[in-house]
């Protein structure tokens, strides 16, 4: 019993500190790859550190983006007079992670092992490396399982989650790869991200409804406007406009909420404050791309090393920003499409279902940006925008159904900001499996 406890304790430590800290997982993968290629010590140290720093830069950039979005979101919530959410009684993220945290992290480790085995012995040679999504997806699915059967045994949770996640992490990249190959003009990298479903839908609807000839990256600008070719500038202009419109509307409202938000700007004019946030958003994207460049630059060659030695011909399945540089304009178009869709669904769900949709800009941005790139690849500008709208549809309806029916008593609070496309679509299947084994 003692030994078993120690083993479980060690596994939990590993899962929390290595898989929970994605940048360490990344460093280990790169180091392993470099070792297998018998690189000299300076390359081992340099390559590993550069990959980890690049990865953390991505997080830092995402943090910058999120900080601006956290101004954006309350602003538009106030514009639409959205009240505080009343969700009834539920366990909540804090308590849930105290009770089920180890189970979640052990399941992640189990899933990763199954992923490696499947990659080694089947034709689906993909290794999922997006650590933070591994964590959140397993967490949300655990929340659904416990919600379905509150007294479910721990070993059942670990068994089901490990197998399900292992299969998902192996197959999801495989489903996306046919489209990704064309976007990146190569086959060495795969997509490992929960935006896969909307990316596929985006590519599908792009083919049906879009116009591939009008590629978003070919948007021709008059010579004088060449500076707009820089995606930093386009992002700043688009977001600047959206922030400014929101600020103007708020300035005409006399509600308490509006006054509180405007007061956040301090001595500075609220309009200037709003524009500054939009530029911070654009800056955040630049930082993300820098991090991606550094990180990808190390992980692809290092991964070649692991792949060649352990699992012949496996591809790393990576976080969604890997596709952003291939169609930066499509990123913005996708987000625009999802922003419009989010407002549309906000109004519809509020009026028809009595549910206040929380348009989490974080999920909406990263997923619609990815979907936009895929939508553009098959359907040009129109495809990118439609892909964005589809993303917001999946996220809005998915959030409504998941929070209301699947995760109601456990962690609906987490589901409202961290749950996303693939989780919403696969959630009902998890619930079904739980009912079958209970």
């Amino acid at each position, binding site marked *: 019993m003692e030994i078993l406890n120690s083993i479980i304790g060690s596994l939990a430590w590993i899962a929390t500190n290595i898989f929970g800290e994605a940048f360490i997982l990344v460093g280990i993968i790169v180091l392993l790859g470099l070792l297998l290629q018998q690189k000299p010590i300076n390359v081992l140290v340099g390559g590993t550190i550069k990959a980890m720093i690049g990865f953390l830069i991505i997080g830092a950039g995402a943090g910058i983006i999120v900080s601006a979005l956290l101004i954006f979101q309350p602003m538009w919530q106030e514009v639409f007079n959205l009240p505080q959410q009343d969700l009834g009684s539920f366990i909540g993220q804090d308590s849930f992670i105290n009770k089920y945290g180890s189970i979640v992290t052990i399941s992640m480790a189990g899933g990763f092992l199954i992923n490696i085995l499947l990659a080694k012995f089947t034709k689906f040679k993909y290794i999922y490396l997006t650590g933070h999504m591994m964590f959140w997806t397993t967490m949300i699915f655990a929340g659904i399982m416990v919600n379905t059967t509150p007294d479910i045994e721990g070993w059942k949770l670990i068994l089901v989650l490990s197998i399900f996640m292992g299969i998902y992490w192996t197959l999801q990249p495989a489903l996306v790869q046919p489209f990704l190959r064309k976007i990146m003009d*190569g086959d060495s990298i795969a997509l490992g991200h929960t935006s896969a479903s909307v990316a596929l839908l985006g590519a599908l609807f792009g083919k049906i409804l879009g116009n591939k000839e009008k590629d978003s990256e070919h948007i021709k600008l008059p010579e004088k406007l060449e500076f707009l070719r820089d995606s930093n500038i386009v992002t700043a202009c688009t977001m600047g406009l959206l922030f400014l419109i929101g600020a103007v509307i708020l300035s005409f409202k006399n509600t308490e909420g509006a006054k509180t938000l405007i007061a956040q700007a301090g001595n500075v004019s609220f309009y200037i404050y709003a524009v500054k946030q939009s530029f911070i958003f654009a800056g955040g994207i630049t930082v993300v791309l820098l991090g991606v*460049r550094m990180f990808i*630059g190390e992980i692809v060659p290092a991964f070649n090393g692991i792949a060649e030695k352990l699992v012949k011909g496996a591809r790393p399945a990576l976080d969604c920003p890997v596709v952003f540089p291939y169609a930066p304009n499509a990123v913005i178009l996708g987000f625009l499409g999802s922003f419009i869709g989010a407002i549309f669904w906000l109004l519809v769900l509020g009026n028809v279902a009595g549910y206040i949709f929380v348009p989490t800009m974080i999920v909406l941005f990263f997923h619609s940006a990815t979907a936009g790139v895929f939508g553009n690849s098959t359907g040009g500008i129109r495809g990118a925008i439609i892909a964005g709208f589809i993303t917001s549809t999946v996220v809005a309806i998915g959030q409504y159904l998941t929070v209301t029916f699947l995760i109601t008593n456990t962690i609906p609070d987490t589901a409202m900001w961290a749950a996303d496309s693939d989780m919403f679509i696969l959630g009902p299947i998890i619930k079904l499996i739980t009912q079958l084994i209970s």
Partner: protein
Amino acid sequence: MNVLTVCGLGMGTSLILKMNVENILKENNVNAKVEHLDVSTAKSTNADLIVTSNELVKNLEGHKAQIIVIKNFFDKEEILKALKDKKII
């Protein structure tokens, strides 16, 4: 010797090119440091040699480095020949 492999975005084809160029130079005992970059950053980065594709050559006009144009980044034969032509190997 400082070598830059350059493409539009700095992480796609330039990275594949970097891996291939690095391997070929190592196999032929040429001592070089190879970095992959996007064309914007490359413009202001010092190097002895730049390996890139045809459509980006104009963007790099005025750069002090020797420029080698490669058509197929995955073709090791083509890269080897181009490096030999420029007396790098």
